[in-house]
């Protein structure tokens, strides 16, 4: 059963990666090209020798982008499927597609949006090579802590709902996530390595395109995975409620 779910998640992730790459190609590649041109102009003005091109720009912006997006999608889809296997039936009497939609929303918020607000995506030419280790560690610390906060809040929802009532309990969970990520975001150091004279509109467009590509990835992942998982009857926890509703007129 879990194997069935896992391969469906990875397949959904591959499809999502393809669509996300096409969004990134049209919305993001013009910004990447501009940023590389800026980087080249700065290096030339400083009299630095041109860096050897290991992979050509034509390959990077086409097959490289698609490969990266598809492999990332497959990985994210795998983790998503495992999260679904754990959540389905444990978050209420929901249709698997509804569980999938809620998981994707939680995933987009905690894995993409919240870490992305603290450490936003950057185009080429932004970021010092000597700080890559620290920046990577900080970024993943933010990703893991906000994902952990989301998981803990999801597990506390049912007990808090029993104690405080459904709506206040839900609000308390949202408050817990926000408080936890706010503490993390204040505690971790800021990173700002945008060079002087870097075009502001280019930075904005690149970041918008990056968030758009990731939103595309999560949305398509949720829709495709939901469609693939829904036919597995044993996963449908809304069935028990429907059967009960259908049986009630008889019982009266």
């Amino acid at each position: 059963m879990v194997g069935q779910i896992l391969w469906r998640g990875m397949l959904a992730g591959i499809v999502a990666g393809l669509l996300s790459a096409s969004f990134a190609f049209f919305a993001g590649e013009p910004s990447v090209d501009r940023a590389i041109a800026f980087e080249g102009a700065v290096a030339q003005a400083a009299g630095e020798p041109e860096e050897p091109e290991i992979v050509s720009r034509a390959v990077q912006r086409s097959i490289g982008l698609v490969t990266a997006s598809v492999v990332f999608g497959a990985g994210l889809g795998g983790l998503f499927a495992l999260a679904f296997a754990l959540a389905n039936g444990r978050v209420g009497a929901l249709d698997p597609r509804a569980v999938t939609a809620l998981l994707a929303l939680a995933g987009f918020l905690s894995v993409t949006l919240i870490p992305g607000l603290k450490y936003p995506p950057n185009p080429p030419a932004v970021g010092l090579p000597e700080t890559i280790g620290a920046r990577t560690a900080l970024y993943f610390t933010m990703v893991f802590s906000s994902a952990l906060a989301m998981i803990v809040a999801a597990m506390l929802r049912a007990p808090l709902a029993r104690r405080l009532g459904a709506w206040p309990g839900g609000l308390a969970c949202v408050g817990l996530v926000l408080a936890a990520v706010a503490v993390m975001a204040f505690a971790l150091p800021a990173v700002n390595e945008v060079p002087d004279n870097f075009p502001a509109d280019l930075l904005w467009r690149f970041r918008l395109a990056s968030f758009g590509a990731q939103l595309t990835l999560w949305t398509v992942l949720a829709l495709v995975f939901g469609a693939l998982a829904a036919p597995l009857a044993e996963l449908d926890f809304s069935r028990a409620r429907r059967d009960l509703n259908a049986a009630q007129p008889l019982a009266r």
Partner: protein
Amino acid sequence: MSHITAAPVSRPVPIPIREILPWLVFGGLLSLLLIYFVGAEEGATSLIPGHFIHEFVHDGRHLMGFPCH
């Protein structure tokens, strides 16, 4: 006709954790490895020498929000 019972309702059960666990290890490691190669290999850390993977996935790494060079 004094007693009518509803048809037995089959209640699905959540997949037991012990059934998920081996898949969580296998699928989790596989997935994290895939994400690692796109997101961080030949950047902050390096398993394979050289810069080919970094340069090949370069645009995707930037656009998926990972820190790159």
